[in-house]
Every structure is written in C-alpha cells, then in structure tokens.
C-alpha cells in the first residue's frame, strides 16, 4: 500500500468514527467507552505481525509476545467487562414479564 492510500484510509476511518457516534444516550456512555477501548486493542495484529516476521530473533519475539499479551488483556478484558455491563440492561424486560 502506498503512503497516500494509507492516509486516505486514515481519513475515511476517522470520518466513519465521527459519524457512528452521533447520538448516544448517556446510559450507554460507559459501555461504549469500554467497548471502543476493547477495539483499540486491535494492535494485537501488529504484535502478531512482529512475531511472525521476527525470523528467530529472540529479543524481538519476546517484545512481540509481551505486546500481544498486553493487547489481548485489553481486548478480552474489554469485551468481557462490556458484556457484563450490558447484560444488566438486557436482563430487565424479561424480569418484568
């Protein structure tokens, strides 16, 4: 990918992000923050790339692995905790019936 097209990707991605969060009820601010936070752990892909391309360079393998660990801590924890919060909202209607 050329640098210019990557810049386009960056621009369109940012616009998409701005557009997606138009109106959010305050109820969902905390879950949304934590969900978006989990997505920012997408750096795990960069960590994976690093490990795959390390070609037996042990220090680089270790850096990649630690980085992957941090990212997955972010991703797995983030999604679980968001789900826990949201479960409390969706439980309500069924309880009432």
């Amino acid at each position: 990918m050329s640098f210019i097209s990557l810049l386009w990707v960056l621009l369109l991605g940012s616009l998409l992000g701005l557009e997606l969060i138009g109106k959010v009820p305050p109820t969902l601010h905390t879950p949304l923050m934590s969900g978006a936070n989990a997505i920012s752990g997408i750096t795990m892909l960069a960590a994976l790339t690093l490990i795959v391309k390390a070609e037996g360079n042990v220090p680089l393998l270790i850096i990649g692995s630690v980085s992957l660990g941090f990212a997955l801590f972010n991703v797995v924890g983030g999604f679980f905790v968001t789900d826990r919060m949201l479960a409390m909202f969706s439980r309500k209607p069924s309880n009432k019936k």
Partner: protein
Amino acid sequence: MNLPVIIKFVIDLLAVLLLALGIKGLSKVKSARDANRLAAFAMSLSVVGLLSYYLGTSGIAIQSWIWIIIGSIVGSLFGAILAKKVPMTSMPETVALFNGCGGMSSLLVALGVAIFPISSGQENFDFFKSLINEVSISVSIFVGAITFTGSIVAMAKLQGWLSTPGWTQSKVRHFVNIVFAVASLIAFFDLINGNTSSIWLLVMVSSLLGIGVTLPIGGADMPVVISLLNSYSGIAAAAAGFVVDSQLLIVAGAMVGAAGLILTQVMCKGMNRSLVSVLFGGSLSAQSTASSGSGEYTNITSCSVEECALTLEAANKVIIVPGYGLAVAQAQHTLREVTKKLEQNGIEVVYAIHPVAGRMPGHMNVLLAEADVPYEQLKEMDVVNPDFPATDVVLVLGANDVVNPQAKNDSSSPLYGMPVLDVQEARTVFVIKRGMSAGYSGIKNDLFDLPNTSMVFGDAKKVLNDLIGELKDLGVGEK
C-alpha cells in the same frame, strides 16, 4: 494477486464492516449487547485473517507459534479474570487499566520495529519511505507511552492510591510539562536524523509527560481524561498500523480515536467543562477555594430517619437523585429495597439521572441496572426537570454538585451554567450525606440552606437500611 492475498483482503473488509456495525450498535440500548459480541467476533476474524495470510505466504515458524501462544494465553487469562471479578463500582479504573495496556502494546510494537527493522522492502530503500516509517514509529511510541502512563495514573487516582500532590497545582507543572514536550520533540528529530538510541529518550520523556499531564487533574474530571486517553489509544493503534503497514489497524484505530473524541466532548458538555480547562486548569477545587470560602451554611435543618420515613409514607410522587456517594457506599441494592416498599404502597418512584451521575457518564445506569431497577424508571435530566414542582419528596443520595442551584442562580459561581437537576422545586428535599463536606467541585451547595431541605446525616447504606426498618414499622409495603 494470489489466493492468500485475496482471502486476507476479503476478511479484512468484512472485519472493518462488522467493527463499524458493532460501534454503531453499541450506541443503542436494544442492540448494544449483540453489537459488543459482533465487535468481538470481528476482532477474532481479523486474527484468523492475518494468520491464514502468513500461513499461505511465508509460513509461520514453530518458534513464532510458541511465542504467540504464550502471549495470547497470559494476556487473555488475566484480562478475563479481571473482567469477571471486578465490582461494577470500579468500572472507571478498570477501563483505564485496559486502555493503558492497549497503549503499551502499540508502544512495544513500535519499539520492536525501531530496534530490529523488519526485513521487508528494505532493498528498495528510499528516503521518503524511511521518513514515514520513522515518523509513524515516533508517533506510536509518543502516544502509546502517554496513553500507558496517563491511564495508570488515572487508575491509581481513582483507586485512591495516588492523591494530587500540592506542587502539581502550581504553575510549575506547565513548565515541567513543556520541558517534557520539548524533550520529546528533540528526541523525535534526533531519531529522524538516524540516531536510533534517542528512541529511549523518547520513551522516557513521553512517559513522564503522560504522568505530568494526568497527575494534576482532579477526581471529578478523571472520566473525561479516561475517555480522552481511550481516544489516544486508538490513535496509537492507527500509528502502529502505519508502522506495520496494516490498513485494518489504521481504520479500526482511527474509528476508535474519532469516536473517543466525540464521547469526550459529550462528557465535557455534561459537566460544563471545556476540554482545555480539564487538561490545563488543574483540579476544580483548587481553583475555586477563593470563591467558595465566602459562603458559610446558615440554615441547615437536620432530621432523623424516622421523620424522613413519615414524609415518604405520605407522599404520592418521589424522585430519587442518586450520585457518586451511593456508588461508593455500594448502596444501590439497599436503595432498591426502599423503593420497592414505596411502590408497593402505590407511591410513584422515579430515578433522576444526571448525565454525569456516578463516576462516569452512564455509570449510574449500570449500577442501578445491577440492582434490578427497571429501565423505564430511570429518567434523564431534561425529561425529569419539569416534574419536580409536582413532586412531594426528593431523596438526594450522595449527589452534590449536580443538585446545586448555584449553577442556575449565581453567575459568579464556578458551577454557573452547568445543567443541574431542579430538586429545590419539589415540596420536600432530603439530602442523605455523611457530613457537611463539599462535593467534587469543593463548592458550597446552596440547596442545603433552603427551608424545604432537610439533611439526614449518615452513611448512605446505613441510612437506607434504617429507612427500611422505619417503613416496615409504619406498615409501608405490606399488603
């Protein structure tokens, strides 16, 4: 294009689409839970896409697999355990911790690439390309380090492990932070000039900058900072995307970065604070000590739990205003017991939720949902404000600044202009509070001096428990 490239392209495209749908769905109550799972699915899909691409092209060495598995297991395990165990009241610091780790991950990737350049396309070396590479590495390290140390400081402050040191409220802190910022700029240019070792300087000063910027910020503004840092971690991820040449990373990072900025803006509005004053103004209480000292309480009425119960029994309509104090006392379940009794007696009960009630916007809704409060009873500020004049009793539980009439009446007050709940319009207001200490803002609350306000002193949970007992004695809620 060969097959692995096409497959990866399709998977990446699908993952981006699903992530966007996920974020979109997270902003609606009905679809939020499914959307969260959709986003999680999209993330795993992207991993499968990447791994299958390398399997189909260069292959993945056994040694790489071992390190991948070690990193994945350790990270996921700790993440899952923490997510399962953490109490709902500590949600803000948990989000901060996760966020910091995301930043750390981006930092490490950039550091790894900087120290050991990945062998790809180095043969057609050109100046422009290496410049871009160095810039993206620097941005990734700079933002990643700020995200990490800033989030950790935010977490420590929310947990009460760190207090705000006095010197950070003086002007010195701006000077110190400017020194850090200039130093990181020097390290950045040095790095571009080809001096790889200056990368350590960059790591160090940007870490210090993260601490220096976050440390002076008061507890009340912390949620805004966490939201902003969340946005930063997206930017760090996008920068890491430039480093390893991944469009998926750039899109996802940019989406999170932009969405985080919007959310930050929304939060600032709810608290009547501008982002600039949050970041550079120091803690609000330090600013306002001069003006708040002018007012002493002159007309405090305190009353017993028994009186409170008697008034509640006679009421037709009750509005509960829950706040941070309720969250700290973990009293949401006890509160639910009280309101159940009132409802059984035919009294209409509604919860008035200020946009920044609790410790983060929306946090109070989560806590009350945890205590089985029906969603329909939670009313947002704009909806509930016209109802106060027709309300018999308002119970203020651990909320303070959000019910301060100064925000409407006193243009000299630092709170002036902040949207507040008009509780003083109700016939009777009970404020359940530990003592006369000021709220987050450190500003005197005029509500407490009003003739229709009575203070019930005590820990929220204990008062509510006593209230249940008194209501029982009165025969409320027993058919």
